[in-house]
């Protein structure tokens, strides 16, 4: 196993994603905000499954819970599940074309949103509104750009 290198940069990118999660947007746009933290977790799990997988996803999900005020553990669970699926299939997913990858990422995001909704519905009785699924679409559109950006970031800084 190659020695870990640049782990700090990975955490830096996750911190930036968490900031993007809570940064203010105009009121009309808040429903369309992509789930940045989850997208970045998906990228790192795909790129370096030995370094970032369920443990990191759990911690980042837990931080998201604290930051956005959902019931503690809801995001942590959903992040862990998505990260598990990616980590178990990373070799397959890496070989997909960008379009296929984006569609797959949309499926992961949809799974995440549904998990979040089911748990919140069970715990606090929230009602479903179709508007909650907008981040799936925006996340899918953001994925190719994020992938390209983070790959440059990883190669420039030789993170492995």
């Amino acid at each position, binding site marked *: *196993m190659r020695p870990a290198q640049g782990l700090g940069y990975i955490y830096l990118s996750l911190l930036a994603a*968490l*900031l993007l*999660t*809570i*940064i*203010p*947007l105009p*009121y009309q746009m*808040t*429903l369309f*905000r992509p789930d940045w933290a989850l997208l970045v977790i998906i990228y790192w799990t795909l790129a370096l499954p*030995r370094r970032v*997988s*369920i*443990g990191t*996803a*759990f911690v980042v*999900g*837990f*931080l998201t*819970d*604290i*930051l*956005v*005020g*959902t*019931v*503690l*553990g*809801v995001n*942590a*669970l959903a992040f*862990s*599940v998505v990260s*598990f699926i990616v*980590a*178990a299939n990373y070799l397959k997913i890496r070989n997909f074309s960008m379009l296929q990858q984006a569609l797959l990422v949309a499926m992961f995001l949809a799974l995440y949103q549904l998990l*979040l*909704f089911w*748990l*919140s519905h069970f*715990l*606090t*009785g*929230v*009602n479903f*509104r179709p*508007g*909650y699924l907008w981040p799936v679409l925006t996340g899918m559109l953001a994925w190719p750009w994020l992938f390209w950006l983070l790959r440059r970031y990883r190669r420039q800084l030789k993170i492995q």
Partner: protein
Amino acid sequence: MNDFFARGPALGLRLVLAVACSIGLMFVDRYTDSATQLRSYLTSAVSPLFYAASLPESVITTASEQLMSQQQLLQENAALKARLLQLDAQLQLLNFLQLENNKLRALLGSAPVVEGQRLIAEVLAVYSHPFSHQVVLNKGSNDGVAVHYPLIDDKGVVGQIISVTPTSSRAILISDNTHAISLRAERTGIRTIAAGIGQWDQLRLIHLPLSTDIREGDRLLTSGLDGRFPEGYPVAEVVSVSRDDSQPFISVQARPYAKLDRIKHVLILSPGSQVEAVRQAEEQP
């Protein structure tokens, strides 16, 4: 293939661990009382992130204030002065009424209403999930804020504080679907409970029997009976009433006066003597 052996516990095992931890957390957060304290500690640990996230907006706001022309500032100043004068005039009358009210209350032998302290707080421009209607405020326990303090804006009741850190606090809005508030209709004096349903512009009045006298346009004020919110602050206006004889209760929707989706400044009230009086009355057998 050293990699294969150096991976630590299997993925499945790690997932089971993470899921178990999450479920434990959810249980602790939802069904025990210790969670509020835990949440406060955790939130104070991450509160630098809140300030960092609201930095861009505050920079932009400051910049736009700097760039305002003097003409605009003078205009705004004049408008504010005019408004202050109007409010002062109303306040004179109010002071007189307050005195009179206290005298009348003394004659009736009931406790006078004493106003608690007030504190202006700014909503840190922080996003919270659509499922949970909460905001983060820039005042914390260092400024004297404590849990359960009510929040109002210039139109009506906004919510209440649910967790406090030294420099910030988190408030739940009346529209959150875990929140309910005790109200009284201004016209008829009927008491009711308004529960949030997770929509910014709607509350639901629950458990109102079919024979209740309530109409569209009724103003709903806080009743003070919940021991959290002081009496008499406007909360919402009834927008729709539908009576269905096959249902045990009427379904009534109300629209909050406060613009919950775009609040910027709020007033934190510390509960006055009246709320204390309700609590004491509850505690006495």
